[in-house]
């Protein structure tokens, strides 16, 4: 079994601060390398170990060999279909965005966080504006329309963490996306 975190309290505290900065400042690219999971990069594995536990049903989208037992061992999260997910993870073409929970009008927080493993992640491309962004940011998103549709649901919606190797950037539901 590939190890999880060597010193969980300390590593997770530092890792969370990186993730919090990323969510608070949409489009900024951060490095996060706490672990090497099967089938995904270190950043995606780190986010999973930081957030997943037996109280967070996980949806694994697409073919992610070895990931389910690794997560079972390190996080103990129950696996679920997309409708019941509090966290979903996979590659962009495999993720069933339309089926994931976007929260309720009076409880918009009851929504899924989506971890998307990408082949590239750069500070160029579609233009991001909104809370957390001074002026605007740019991020190489895999599409535009789904994120505009997601923003239109605000305050409901999905929150995205894009990962590529040991790098990550976030796109919360509050961010407005336009073509560059």
């Amino acid at each position: 079994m590939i190890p999880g975190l060597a010193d969980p309290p300390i590593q997770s505290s530092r890792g969370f601060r990186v993730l919090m900065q990323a969510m608070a400042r949409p489009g900024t690219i951060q490095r996060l390398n706490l672990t090497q999971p099967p089938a995904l990069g270190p950043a995606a594995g780190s986010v999973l170990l930081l957030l997943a536990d037996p109280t967070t049903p996980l949806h694994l989208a697409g073919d992610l060999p070895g990931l389910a037992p690794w997560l079972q061992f390190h996080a103990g999260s129950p696996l679920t279909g997309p409708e019941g997910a509090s966290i979903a993870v996979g590659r962009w073409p495999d993720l069933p965005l339309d089926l994931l929970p976007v929260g309720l009008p009076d409880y918009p927080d009851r929504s899924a966080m989506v971890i998307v493993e990408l082949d590239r992640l750069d500070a160029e491309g579609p233009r991001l504006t909104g809370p957390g962004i001074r002026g605007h940011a740019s991020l190489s998103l895999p599409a535009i329309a789904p994120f505009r549709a997601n923003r239109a649901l605000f305050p409901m919606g999905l929150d995205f963490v894009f990962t590529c190797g040991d790098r990550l950037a976030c796109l919360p539901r509050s961010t407005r996306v336009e073509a560059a």
Partner: protein
Amino acid sequence: MSDYNFAYLDEQTKRMIRRAILKALAIPGYQVPFASREMPMPYGWGTGGVQLTAACLTPDDCLKVIDQGADDTTNAVSIRKFFQRTAGVAVTQATREATLIQTRHRIPETPLTEDQVLVYQVPIPEPLRFLEPRETETRKMHELEEYGLMHVKLYEDIARHGQIATSYAYPVKVEGRYVMDPSPIPKFDNPKLSDCPAIQLFGAGREQRIYALPPYTQVVSLDFDDYPFEASKPDHDCDLCGASDSYLDEVITDDRGGRMFVCSDTDFCAGRVRAGHAGRLAGRNKGAAA
């Protein structure tokens, strides 16, 4: 430190709080419910803020704790010691040196930076609570953006007092969506909430709510065209450091009605005095005068 997990809380509790923080950052101004834990201090001592701080602290942090602007009150000292003991973090009283600041009822005068996190202790997170005691109803009001009653209340203030009498916990609207209680900071501090480079997190322990303002979020104090919001403060300069732009506490100096005005932010005031600024009563100190 061996009796505690790092920063006191167990890892599963921290994960739960951390998930709530991320949701709060994604929905600025919305109150995210969380399962508040018992902390080894009474509720009035800011257990919501303490839990946020515990979930955010790393061993690399330098922590500042303020209570109404002061670093040396019993409440501030005890929270600071708690995290020195349970997390082994460095502490400071200097706003500029701090990477994480937990505060009760003030925003520091020294402008915050992108490298800082400000954690507020919140007693009553729901700005609509005094208009509507039922949680199901206030939740519905937020859902439907039914904030008319809040404006009526502020307007009644104007009818009765000739101005908006609310001077603490003055309600704000976040990014044109949620009305939010900024905690009982003086309304003088309200403009600092908006477009702030630091992350701002709000925690209510008894009421089990977390909410947040990401950096550079637009925060507007509620007001009216004919009665615009005013970030007022006592019309004096600080008697110790001469500052004309800081929030002041009034201190009674003797039993003959003597009084002085001093900065509520003790680090800001002491820094100005060290830099050679002097007020009307320079040389006296707040503690001795009181």
